[in-house]
């Protein structure tokens, strides 16, 4: 660990990575593998294993609707999160870090609590409705309404803080010196944002946005508290089927879970392609 002679060789490095690698690989493979097998009928609760895609077929319409809803919610929330998060990070550059600090305060808030408090804020009898003095019917149905607005806002609220912190870190370390260099070369504030700041923070934004997107895709408690009964996002559907009394729905629950995982992987693949393109151009 200290002297060149004791510098970890490949074996030593491999040894050090095992305490993290083994649990991660085991849990992920066991968990997702088991879900996959259950969805394909190869790990039934009762009866003999038999390969079948019934679990996917039976609910195909609902799965498709739920998938579309999940993706829509995740996209909307991530878009708002990126917009607000990047803006927050940019305001913190000049030294007045109030907005960033406010964002940091929201980080320890669990999503469940966030859902509860945003529900108290945006419901028909919530704080904002009272503030605007709008009685029954005058206040739009943000919670449990047709457009899943409260759900999207809660995800966007938490994501914007996460993205703000990630981008602020990159701005502080990498971008500050380049901004001055660009200024003495005659670039206006807008030009500096366009030609220096945004290109340099782009990889971090893509990474943070992808993590936020996939998290929202697989998130349960917020849609549970703030959403409506139908249609359901994929995680809500999966857990409803999983905890139902009818044991025959277990494979269907697993199918919904696998679909969610696949969507997440597709999103990551898309993000990697986006990142690779800029590297090649470089």
């Amino acid at each position, binding site marked *: 660990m200290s002297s060149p002679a004791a510098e970890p060789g490949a074996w030593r490095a491999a040894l050090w990575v095992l305490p993290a690698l083994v649990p991660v690989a085991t849990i992920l493979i066991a968990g997702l593998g088991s879900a996959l097998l259950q969805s394909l009928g190869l790990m039934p609760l009762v009866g003999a294993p038999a390969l079948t895609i019934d679990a996917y077929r039976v609910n195909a319409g609902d799965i498709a609707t739920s998938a579309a809803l999940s993706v829509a919610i995740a996209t909307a929330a991530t878009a708002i999160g990126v917009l607000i998060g990047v803006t927050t990070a940019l305001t913190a550059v000049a030294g007045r870090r109030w907005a960033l600090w406010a964002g940091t305060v929201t980080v320890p808030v669990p999503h469940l609590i966030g859902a509860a408090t945003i529900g108290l804020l945006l419901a028909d009898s919530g704080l904002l409705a009272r503030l605007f003095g709008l009685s029954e019917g005058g206040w739009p149905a943000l919670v449990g309404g047709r457009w899943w607005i409260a759900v999207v806002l809660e995800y966007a609220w938490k994501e914007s803080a996460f993205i703000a912190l990630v981008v602020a870190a990159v701005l502080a370390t990498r971008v500050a010196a380049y901004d001055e*260099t660009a*200024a*003495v*070369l*005659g670039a206006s*504030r807008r030009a*500096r944002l366009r*030609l220096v700041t945004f290109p340099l923070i782009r990889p971090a934004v893509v990474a943070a946005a992808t993590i936020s997107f996939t998290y929202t895709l697989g998130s349960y408690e917020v849609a549970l508290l703030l959403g409506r009964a139908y249609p359901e996002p994929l995680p809500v559907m999966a857990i409803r089927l999983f905890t139902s009394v009818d044991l025959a729905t277990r494979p269907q629950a697993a199918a919904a879970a696998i679909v969610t995982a696949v969507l997440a992987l597709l999103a990551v693949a898309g993000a990697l392609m986006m990142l690779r393109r800029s590297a090649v151009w*470089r």
Partner: protein
Amino acid sequence: MSTRLELRGLTRHHRGQHVAALNGLDLDVNAGACLALLGPSGSGKSTTLRLVAGLDQPTRGTVLLDGDDVTNTPAEQRGIAMVFQRALLFPHLSVIDNVAFAARASGMSRRDSRAASQRYLELVQLGDFADRCVADISGGQAQRVALARSLAAEPKVLLLDEPFSALDSALRADMYALLRSIRDALNPTIVLVTHDQSEAAAVAEEIAVLIDGVLEHHSDVRTAYVRPSTLAVHRLMGGLNEIPGSIASGVHRSELGSHALPADIGARDGPATLVIRQEVVRLAEPSASSITGTIESLQSAGIRQRARVRVGSSSVFVELPPQVSAAAGTVVGLQLPTDALHAISTRAGGAV
């Protein structure tokens, strides 16, 4: 690109600091001239550059370009380019795109800006490097690209903040030659900050010395060596000989005897330190000189030797020409050419 730069009463207190980083600087740089701003660390040199560039605001004072007050103009509109100690080439752009940055920022298309910038890249002798990745070039090459990038902005004044300090001496010599050819081609007004007096002498015609935020000396290069305003400036310029004594009627009296001072110094009567460059003092036969002393030690300074000659309780440093050799313990005579003598008045009981 030739613009006259004037600084009037430029003062800067860093946030929360009581002591001024820069205190009342008055400095003029003629169009097309090259001024070296010299000083020890923390003397306010980089602060000055940042104020001139517009990256920081002065607490008091003004910056004038060809007579126009630009103190309240933001950095991007001043037309003053700056090369930093670290090249800071934009990592997401190629070499040519870095050089073309100013053109791009002003609205030129990518193709036009690249075409317009090629000549600046050729000026720094890196014409073939246009499409290279910034990560693939050496430190010296990066510094040259940074120079080209600043020149391509066609600035009114070019500021260089210790740009060669990270390069080895051979590379530095190349850069001095490069700077000379750039001056021939474009005649920009240049302010170069450095802590190295030999670099200042190699590159500039004028030297200004900042010590603790105050301008202590401003003159052409030779005068800075031979007629420093203060002892601190003398030491900064590498001068080693300081002989305490006093002046009466234009004659300096000290342990080395009486020496008539050149008329143009304007020496005041009173306590004063005699200074003379070690490169100018000559050894002679003890019998033929008015000053005699003993060589106390010899030190090599490159190919030459520097002798420390003890005269009474004082030491005189002499840089010996390459063909002359001497041995410690030898009694020698010293000759101090009159026109190279200089005296700096000191207050009673204190050094300047």
